C-alpha cells in the first residue's frame, strides 16, 4: 500500500468511527475553551480583587439561592466554579502536553539510540526502564514532588517527565529493533548511508507509529496524574487553578451537601479524559495489525 492510500484509508476510517469523531470534538471544545478562557469566563477566579466573600458557597444558578453570573455556583472563597474549571483545564492541558512533548522527545531519542546501538547503552536503559516501570509513574512522581515540594507548574511537569519518559523509550526501542532488520534499512546501509542518516531518514519515520498511540494514552494518564497529585496537595501550588485541588476543597464540604463543588470539576476532568481515550482507542485499533477488523 502506498503512503497516500494508507492516509486516505485512515481518514475514512476516522470519519466513519463515531467514537473517534466524538473524542476529537470533545478535545477541540476543551482546547478552544481553554485558549479563549479570559474572553468567555465571567470572572478571573485567581484575581483576588474580583472575589467577594459575600458570594461564597452559592449553589448553581437554577437552584434556590443561585446568583448570577455564577452558572455552576461558587466555592468557599466565592470563586465562580465554571471559570475555575476552565482555568483548571488550562493547567491540565499545559501539564499534559508539556509532559508528552518533553518526556516523549527524550524517551524517543533514548529508545532510538538504545535500539540501534544496543550493547551497554541498551542494557542500562532497559534495566532503568524496568525499575522505573515497577515503581510506577504515579508513585515516582508523587515521591519526587513530596520530597521537593512547593514548586510551580514547571516543577510538576519535570517531576512527571522524570517518572514517565521510560514509557516512550521502551516502546521506541522495541519498534527500532524490528525496523532495523528490514530490507530497506539494509539496502540504505549497503549504499553507504551513515549512522545519522540511517537513524533519522530511515529508521525514525518507520519506527515511530506505535509512539502515536502512547502519546494519546499518555496524555490522558498525565492529566489524571496531575489532578491526583494536586488533590493530594503535592501538585501545582494553591495559587494556580487545578481540577484536582477544586475537588480536594469540595471534599471538605461533601457532608454539607455542596455537591456542585465536586461534581462539576470531576465531570469536566472525566469528560476531557474520555475524549482523549476515545481517540486513543481508535488509534490503537487502527495501528495494530494483529487484530482482525470487520468490514
Amino acid at each position, binding site marked *: 500500500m502506498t503512503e497516500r492510500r494508507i492516509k486516505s484509508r485512515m481518514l475514512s476510517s476516522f470519519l466513519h468511527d463515531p467514537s473517534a469523531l466524538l473524542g476529537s470534538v470533545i478535545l477541540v471544545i476543551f482546547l478552544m475553551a481553554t485558549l479563549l478562557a479570559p474572553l468567555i469566563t465571567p470572572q478571573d477566579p485567581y484575581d483576588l480583587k474580583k472575589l467577594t466573600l459575600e458570594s461564597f458557597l452559592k449553589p448553581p444558578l437554577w437552584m434556590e439561592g443561585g446568583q448570577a453570573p455564577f452558572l455552576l455556583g461558587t466555592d468557599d472563597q466565592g470563586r465562580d466554579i465554571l471559570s475555575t474549571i476552565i482555568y483548571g483545564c488550562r493547567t491540565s492541558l499545559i501539564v499534559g502536553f508539556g509532559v508528552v512533548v518533553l518526556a516523549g522527545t527524550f524517551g524517543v531519542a533514548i529508545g532510538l539510540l538504545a535500539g540501534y546501538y544496543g550493547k551497554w547503552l541498551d542494557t542500562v536503559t532497559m534495566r532503568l526502564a524496568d*525499575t522505573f516501570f515497577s515503581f510506577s509513574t504515579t508513585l515516582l512522581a508523587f515521591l519526587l514532588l513530596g*520530597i521537593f515540594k512547593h514548586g510551580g507548574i514547571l516543577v510538576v511537569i519535570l517531576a512527571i517527565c522524570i517518572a514517565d519518559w521510560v514509557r516512550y523509550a521502551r516502546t521506541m526501542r522495541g519498534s527500532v529493533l524490528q525496523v532495523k532488520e528490514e530490507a530497506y534499512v539494509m539496502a540504505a546501509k549497503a549504499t553507504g548511508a551513515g549512522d545519522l542518516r540511517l537513524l533519522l531518514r530511515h529508521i525514525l519515520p518507520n519506527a515511530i507509529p506505535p509512539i502515536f498511540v502512547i502519546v494519546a494514552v499518555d496524555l490522558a494518564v498525565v492529566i489524571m496524574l496531575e489532578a491526583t497529585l494536586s488533590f493530594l496537595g503535592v501538585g501545582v501550588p494553591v495559587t494556580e487553578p487545578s481540577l484536582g485541588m477544586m475537588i480536594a476543597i469540595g*471534599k471538605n464540604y461533601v457532608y454539607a*451537601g455542596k455537591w456542585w463543588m465536586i461534581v462539576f470539576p470531576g465531570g469536566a476532568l*472525566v469528560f476531557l479524559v474520555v475524549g482523549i481515550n*476515545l481517540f486513543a482507542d481508535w488509534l490503537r485499533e487502527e495501528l495494530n495489525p*494483529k*487484530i482482525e477488523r470487520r468490514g
Partner: protein
Amino acid sequence: MATYVARRLIQAVVVLLAVSLICFCIFRYLGDPVISMAGLYATFQEREEVRRVFGLDKPTYVQYGLFVWNAAHGNFGKSFVSRVPALPLILERFPATFELATCAVCIAFVVGVGLGVLVSLRPYSAKSRLIMAASLGGISIPTFLTGILLIMVFSVMVGILPSYGRGNTIQLGFWRTGLLTLDGIKHLILPACTLASYQLAVLLRLTRAGMREVLAEEYIKTAWAKGLPPRKVIFKHALRNVMIPVVTITGLQFGELLAFSIVTETIYQWPGMGNLLLTSIYENDQPVIVTYIMLASLIIITLNTIVDILYAILNPKIRYD
C-alpha cells in the same frame, strides 16, 4: 538459567543500593538533620553533641556506610514528629494496608478477568459494547474521584456505608485485623472498591485484548473442531495462555498499587502506611519518608525479581543465556 537468576539477583541488589543512596542524600542534604533532631532552640553544645552521637561529623562515605548498615538492621532513626523509631511506626500500619490491598486485588481480578472473557466471546454484542463503554469510563475516572463519588452516594446520600477509618478491629498477636468484625468489613467495602477500580478496567481490557488474539489462533480452532465443550476451550486452552502476561503485568505494577493505596487511604482516613506517608510529607518527617521508600523498594524489587524468574521458568518460549 542459573546465570540468569544470578544476574537478576545482582541487579536487584544494585537497584536497592541505588535507592539507599538516594534516600541517604534526602536524609542528609534536604533540610538539616541536626536541627530536626536537636530542635530549633538547642544550644551550640547540644548540636555538637547530636552531631557526634549520630556520626554526622564523619566523612560522607562513612556516614553512607553507617546508613546502609543501620538500614540493614532495621534501624532508620526516630520520627522527627512522634519521636519513636520509624520502622515500627510504619510496620504497625502494615496490616491495614495489606488487608485493603489484598481485598482490592481480589475484587479487581474476579470482576475484571470475568468481564474481559465475557466481552471477548461476543465482541460486537450490545452487552459487550455496554461493558466496554463502562470500562472506558473506568479508565477515565481517576481513583480519587471514584472514592469521593462513592462516599457521596453511599455515605452521604444513601447513608448505608461508613466513609471514615477502619471501624472495630481485633488484635491477633502483632496483627490487627478488621476482617473479623461486621463493622470492620463494612468499613472496608468502599475503600476496597475504590482501590480495585483502577485495576479492574485495566485487567478487563488486557484480558479482552489477549483473548481476542488467542481466540484467533490455530490451536483454539483445533480445540473447537474436535468438539470440546466451550467451557474447556475458553478456560483451559485460551484463558490460561492469556493469564500469563496478565498476571505478570499486574505483578510488575505493584508500585501502582502502592501509589493508589496512598490516594485511597487519604480519602477514607484509612490508618495504613500510605496515609502515614502523606502526613509525614506534610510534616517534613524525613526518617519516616525514607523508611517508607526503602521498605516499598524492598517489596517492589523482591516481587519483581520473583516474577521475572518465575516467568522465565514457566514460559518455555523464552530462553535466557
